Structures are given as C-alpha cells and as structure tokens.
C-alpha cells in the first residue's frame, strides 16, 4: 500500500525557501520583516497540520516529482520528525515578531533585509533536514541551514562575529564533509540513498569495514554540528557574538535538528541491526555526553559574559540529550527527545530575555548588569523561569527532562549515571545563581539608571515562550507521551 503524497510536507520546506529571495527584492527592513513573520506563522500552521496528520496516520509522505522511493527522493515524517518540526516552526514563529526591534540595535540598517533572507533560508534548511527521507538530500539541507547560519552569525556588530563565523564555517564544513563521506561509503555498499531502504539493506552489509568506517564518519560529522564535546569549540564564540535573535533561534533549533540527525542514523538507518554490538558507540557517546555535562557546566560558572555562559550551558544540555539517546532504551530516547523540546523552550526564553536586556542596555557582562532585575523586572522574571528550568526545579520543563533521564538510567541499573546527572544539575545552580545575585541583589549602577523595560514586541514573545515552558513543565503528559511514541517508533521500526 503506497501512502498518498501529502503536499503540505513539501510546502513546509518550499514556502520559506521561495520567500527568501523575495525578501532580497523587497529591500526594506519593515517589508522583509513582515514577509518573514507571515511566512513563519504559515510554516507553523503547516507544521501543526502535519503533526495532526502524523498522529492520525502514523506518518506523512511526499514523493518529489512523483517518483517512487527508492529511485526518487522521498519526504517522510514520523512522530520524531513531527515533534522536531513543530519545535523548529514554533521557535521560528515566536522569534520573528521579537526580531523586529532586536535587530534594529544589533544589525546595520541596510543589512536587515538580508538578515531576514538568511533567517528564512535557515528555517527552510532546518525543516528540510527533518522531513527528508533521503540521506544526500539531508546533506543539501544541512548545508543550506549551515551556510545561512554562518551568514546570520557574521551579522553581529562585534567584529569577533566574523572570526566566530569563519571558525564555525571551517568546522561545520568539515563536519558536513565527514557526513557526506559516510553517506558515500554507505552508498558504495548498499547502492541506495533512501533512508528507509538503507535500513532494509543494512543487516546484510553491517559487518563490513566500509559500514564501520561510514558509521564513524557519520558520527563524527554529526557531532561537529551537534557541538558534542570535544567538537564544541565553535559554539561559545558563535553564540556570544552573533546578534541576540540569531543566538536565540540557533540555540533553540539548530542543535536539536542535529540531534535528530543522530537519532535518524542510529535508530533508523542502523535500526535493524544491533548497533552497539560490533561498535563501541555507546560507551563513547556516554563518556562524551558526561564530559560535556560536567566540563561545560563548570566552564559556565566562570563566565562573565552572560551570553557565553548560556552558550556553555547549551553545550552541557546537549550532553544530556546525547546521554538519553546513547542509553538506547525507550526511556532513554524519550528522555533525549523530551529534553530537545524542553531545552528549546528554556534556552529560547533565556536568550530572548538576554536579547531584550542587550536591546535596552547594550550590556552583556555581569558587572554591567548589576541590579538589572529592578529595572527590567518582567524580562528578568522570564530569565529566572528559564534559569530555574536549567536547574531542574519542579514546574519547569527541566525537571521533566531530568526525571526522565534519571529514570532511564535507573532502569538499566546505571547508578553512577543517575548520580552524575543530578550532580551536574547542581553545577547549574551555581552559574544561574551568579546571574540572579547580580541581577537582583545588587544596586543598579549609573549607566542603568534610565533603563526601562523592554518594548512589548520583544517582551511578549519572550513571555509566550516562558509561559509555554511553565505549562509544559507543569503538565508534561502530552509532550512525554509524544516523546514516548517517538521513542517507541524509533526502537521498533520505521
């Protein structure tokens, strides 16, 4: 039974892709913003529609050009993909209204329309990665999103944004090239690029050295994009010097999509073979994840620049996601997937709040932000919510993720792992509390005397995300069930 082609699936990717050059033609900052915002909301609506379809039918399919798989390129959306698509689209829809004011102060006026162009391209690329069912097509979208990210980062008004972008470019391209080597090796042995097809053929060829090499290249390549320790070096600078909107957007989406690619490779492409039997992938990933959790959290404690602190925090959170995935049990993958969602909520809120502070004060270091809690109470309240989430206090999504991850560790009797997860949460207390103390317990210095609360167009999206965070922290049944369904699907079959 060949499922019907669902055109919404291709529209999801094509609409922002086509809107991007229109932005270039529009030239004006306001016009570009309007178009981009309208497109992002349309994309979000499409994403919700697709999620609905997936929940009803189990998957959505689109064959490009009408060619059947595996000869043609097929787009497939399953529960995991739908989940990620909704996350990316939602973040896009929330960020764009926020972006209008934020970029006014951080990007040169005559370049703003280019910013929106790149943002739409990035959105299209990220969505394309998630919905494609073809390994090489994935590379194409990976590069679309990456190249646009490089440009987005370089738009920051500090000249270090340029070098940060360059470094990210170098590392990212190496990562993508490794990925393509892996795909090439797999193609050499299996003769197909279609992910579902690869899964069927893999058991026959899994013991070849070629496949082992392919897996190695794929993992390293994706880890570079994922900023998994020790391949994370591009992230702190990139997040710190990019415009705040860009940081918020990328922090909440790009790494999640890279984690999705890892899931796809490990559990779909290699889903029909026992991946960990012949390959010591699990211990390697777990050790790297633990290292990320601890070393990055420790680094965060010593940072003076709030954006850089949050960047290191992101690296630690990616460690949690990979830990869940590496456990390779239903509970573990549920933990990894739910943390993708929860982290997007929390980090998105945090970076948007920081962006609002930057907009209002121009300052981003702790010593310039003393007493900011009194001047911008609403903004900092949103940051507090995000911070409490990172610590893992109940009623925040971070608590739900920790719960799931520790449960998953206990289920497989990995006690030390559970203890380490909780220990690293305590490190989060230390760096979050530094920000709280400075923001609330110190007096505002003279430069901050005239600071007022952020404009509504920035405050509202930040609070929408913060409110969503609290909602999904208090009532996590829906999202956990979704994540669980996704995990079951990944463990059970494509």
């Amino acid at each position, binding site marked *: 039974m060949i499922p019907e082609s669902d055109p919404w699936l291709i529209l999801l990717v094509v609409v922002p892709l086509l809107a991007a050059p229109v932005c270039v033609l529009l030239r004006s900052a306001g016009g570009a913003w309007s178009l981009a915002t309208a497109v992002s909301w349309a994309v979000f609506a499409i994403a919700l529609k697709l999620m609905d379809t997936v929940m009803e039918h189990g998957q959505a399919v689109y064959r490009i050009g009408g060619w059947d798989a595996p000869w043609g390129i097929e787009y497939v959306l399953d529960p995991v993909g739908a989940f990620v698509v909704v996350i990316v689209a939602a973040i896009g829809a929330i960020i764009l209204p926020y972006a209008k004011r934020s970029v006014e102060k951080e990007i040169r006026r005559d370049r703003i329309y280019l910013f929106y162009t790149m943002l739409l391209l990035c959105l299209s690329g990220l969505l394309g990665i998630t919905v494609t069912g073809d390994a090489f097509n994935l590379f194409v979208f990976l590069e679309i999103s990456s190249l646009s990210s490089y440009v987005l980062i370089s738009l920051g008004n500090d000249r270090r944004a340029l070098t940060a972008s360059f470094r990210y470019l170098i590392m990212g391209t190496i990562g993508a090239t490794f990925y393509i080597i892996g795909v090439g090796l797999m193609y050499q042995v299996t003769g197909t690029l279609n992910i579902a097809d690869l899964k069927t053929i893999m058991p026959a060829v899994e013991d070849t050295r070629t496949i082992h090499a392919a897996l190695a290249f794929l993992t390293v390549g994706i880890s570079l994009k994922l900023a998994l320790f020790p391949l994370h070096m591009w992230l702190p600078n990139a997040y710190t010097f990019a415009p705040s909107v860009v940081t918020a957007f990328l922090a909440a989406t790009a790494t999640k999509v890279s984690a999705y690619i890892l899931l796809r490779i490990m559990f779909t492409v290699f889903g029909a073979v026992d991946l960990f039997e012949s390959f010591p992938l699990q211990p390697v990933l777990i050790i790297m994840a633990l290292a990320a959790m601890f070393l990055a959290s420790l680094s965060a404690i010593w940072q003076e620049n709030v954006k850089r602190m949050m960047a290191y925090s992101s690296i630690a959170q990616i460690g949690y996601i990979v830990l869940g995935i590496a456990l390779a049990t239903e509970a573990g993958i549920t933990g990894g997937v739910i943390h993708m969602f929860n982290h997007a909520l929390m980090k998105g809120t945090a970076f948007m709040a920081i962006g609002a502070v930057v907009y209002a004060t121009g300052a981003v270091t702790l010593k310039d932000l003393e007493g900011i809690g009194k001047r911008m109470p609403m903004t900092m309240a949103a940051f507090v919510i995000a911070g*409490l989430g990172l*610590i*893992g*206090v*109940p*009623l925040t999504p971070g608590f*739900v993720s*920790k*719960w799931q991850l*520790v*449960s998953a560790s*206990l*289920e497989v009797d990995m006690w030390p792992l*559970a*203890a380490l997860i*909780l*220990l690293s*949460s*305590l490190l989060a*207390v230390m760096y979050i*509390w530094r920000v709280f*103390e400075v923001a*609330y*317990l110190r007096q505002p210095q003279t430069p901050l005397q005239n600071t007022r609360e952020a404009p509504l167009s920035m405050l509202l999206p930040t609070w929408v995300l913060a409110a969503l965070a609290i909602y999904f922290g*208090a*009532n*996590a*049944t829906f999202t*956990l*069930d979704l994540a*669980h369904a996704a995990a079951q699907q990944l463990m059970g079959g494509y």
Partner: protein
Amino acid sequence: MLFSYLSEAQAIQLAVILPLIGGLLVMWMGERNRNLRETVSLVTAVAEFILVASLTSEVLDGARPSVDLFTMLPGLAVTLTVEPLGQLFALIASGLWIINTVYSIGYMRGNKEGNQTRFYVCFTIAISAAVGIAYAGNLLTLFLFYEVLTISTYPLVTHSGKPEAIRGGRVYLGILMATSIGFLFLAMLWTYNLTGTLDFVEGGILAGQVQGPELAVLLLLYMYGIGKAALMPVHRWLPAAMVAPTPVSALLHAVAVVKAGVFSVVKVVVYIFGLDMLNTAHSDDWLLFIAGFTIIAASIIALRQDNLKRRLAYSTVSQLSYVILATAILAPISIVGAVMHIAAHAFGKITLFFAAGSIYTAAHKTEVSQLDGIGKRMPFTMAAFGIGALSMIGIPPTAGFISKWYILSGALETGEAFAILIIVASTLLNAGYFLPIVYAAFFKEQKPRPEDDPYHKYDNHGEAPVAVVLALCFTALGTILLFFFPDVPLALGRALVGG
C-alpha cells in the same frame, strides 16, 4: 463544613491557593497604601486559618479527602490529600502565620525595613508552599512544594541585601538545593522505579521491595535529602539563615521551613517506608545514632554561642532531631510524641524568636552577654522568653513537657536506652543554655553601653512596639494552653499511628 458552598476538593485547593491570591493583592497594592496592604495580609492569614481548621473535624473522623490538581507526568498527578499529620502541620503553619503577620508589621515598621512588599509577598508564597507540603498526597507533590518553599524563602533570607546576607543566602540555598536535588530527587526516583508509585499509603509502599543495605541507603538518601530537617552535617543552613530579619527567622525556624523538614521525615517514614517494615529491618539504627548525636552536638554548640539568634538556631537543630529521634524509635507512642513536639516546638520557638526580635527592636541588643537586667525594662518580652525556654527544656506547665513525656514513654517501651540517655542529657544541656539568660535578665544589673557605641542611645529603652509584644504574649500563652489542652495535636498524632 464552615463554607457550606465549597466542596471538599475546592476547599483543599483553596487552602493552597488562598495565600497566593493574598500575595497578588499585596503585590498590587505595593508601597502605595501600606495600611491596606497590611490589612490584606492579616485578613488572608485569618481566612486561611479558618479554612484549614474547618477540615480538622473530618480528618479526625477518619476521612481522607483528596483532590488531583494536574497531571505532571504520565501516571503521576500533583495530588492534595488531607491526613492527620498534614492537618496538624497545616494548622500550625496557618495559625502561626496570623501571629507572625502581626509581629512582622510591628517589627518591619519598628525597624524601618525596606522592601516590605517583597517581604510580604514572599511570605504568602512560602505559606502556600507549606500548606502544599502539608497536604501533599504523593512524593512528587511534596517535592514540588518543598522546592517552592526553598526558593520563596531565599529572598526572605537575603532581605537586607548586605554582603553577609548574600553569603548566608548562598549557604542556605546551596545546602537545601544540593540535598534536595542530589539526594531527595534520587531517592524519589529510586522509590518510583521500585514500586511504580509515589503515593503516601498507610503502611508504606516499600514493603518487600527493598531489603538490607539497600534499604539503609534509601533511608539515608531520604533523611539527608530532606535537608530542612537539619540533620548533621547538613544543618549548616540553619545558623547561616540567621542573617534574616527576625520575623523570617521565626517563620523559618518555627512555622514553615524546619517544620516542613521534620514533617517530611515523619511522613516518609510512616507513609513510604511504613513503621512495621522498618521495625523488622533494623535499618534505621543508624538514624537513631545520628539524630542523637545531632541533639547533643547542637546543644553543646548552642552553649558556646553568644549571639542570641545563633544560640536559638542551634537549639532548633537540636529540637528538630528530637522529632527525628522519636520517629526513629518507631514506637507508636513516640510517634505521637514526635507529632506533639512539632506543635510544641513551633509555639515555643516562635516565642523565643519573637522575644529576640523584640529585644533587637527595642534595645538593639543581639548578644546574650548584653542581656543582663533587661527583664526589668522588658518584662513581657522576657517573661515570654522564659516560658518558651521552659518549653524547650520540657518543664510543666508548658507544651514541651507533654511531647517529651510521650517520647520518653516510647523510648522506655521499646527499651531504647540510648534514646533515654540522649533525652536526659539534652534536657540538662537545654537548661544550661536557656536558664542563665532568664536569670541574668531578671536578677542582674543592666550593663550600660560605652559612650562611643552607636546604639548607646537605646540604653533607656522600654518594651517593643505593641504589635510585637502582643504577638509574643500570644504565642507564650499558646505554649501554656497547649499544655492544658493538647487534645487536637494528640488526637491527630494518634490518628496517624492508629488509623
């Protein structure tokens, strides 16, 4: 039912939410109309107490009304269930909140403290969390409100904003968060992993699921995870929190935070482990020793403190471990004693802290050595202090006598010689660090301060402001009344172990 138009479920939910509504109103009123703001605080407190009290009769009749708030995780809801122990804690918290509010008004205005709105708002959140802990129907709910209590009391501890307050706040938060996330969360998940549930059930849910050394470790995780019970060595947050203004100390050390700690200890022992299970397993012997050690060690440290509040802080550490010791004995009658002691200590300690704050407000004195002859200038305050001290020592006609009696009976019944020894020794120590203060206050001459002392002008002080004195007289009276009318706490205690 006092509120006949409120269903049971609504009443329980309202009990948790009402303080928050009050808090919102207070926040809205802000600094604009301070008298109105204070009135709202008081009215909310009174309404809360009436609401909580209305549930008492049902609980004593055997009913266990329950309501689910929302489902946080699949299969795990945030649930509120009213049972005897919780009802007692809720009664104490809401009742003493009224008196604490009266006291706070007098203290904050008398000392011209800043940020009063923030103070009152955080208070309401803390009380809401305390009632939430009291009525928690499962461990998840308990943990949730436990964390909310920690976070909402942090701004109260660091109220003054001075460097030592910030440092104290760090120790406070650091220890409480580290223990709750590091130990309690782990214990909770371990329990869930073993049993598939987190509900508080009579007889416990762990029977048969865990034995031997694992049981001891699980118990250890719980006991140290509940950092608010101040078991050594995680007790350091208590003296560190003394940097807070006295109404906060009274709240922390008598009404909400420490009571939440020992309450959680008793609740976990009775409803998660089950008395029978622990009795047969002998895995809690270590708890007996550590509680006993804490009692004695804290008392010895208290002896050597000159700062009055610090002395009271270490006394609290010691008294809390009485409750833990009583629980560890595992005899029903000692558990009743533990429950009674939660009530007795609450009244006694709050009186002592009120007195300390009163002394500071009127005379700006903080050290025990300065208190010579102060009884002549502040007779009400020092009389109340005396009553509170007697309750701590356990001398009739104060409530502390009754609880100690029950605990001793339990120890005698089970033949726990160690516990008997500890109780006797600590009684002597308590007398050692409380009675001299009372003696010096009434029977020694006041030592005037040197001319260059900034507080020299306060030497000719009288009593503290009316609100302050009123509050402490009330609680002192309560301590004595509780001796003569201990029915409600005792009944609740008996319902806990009998029912």
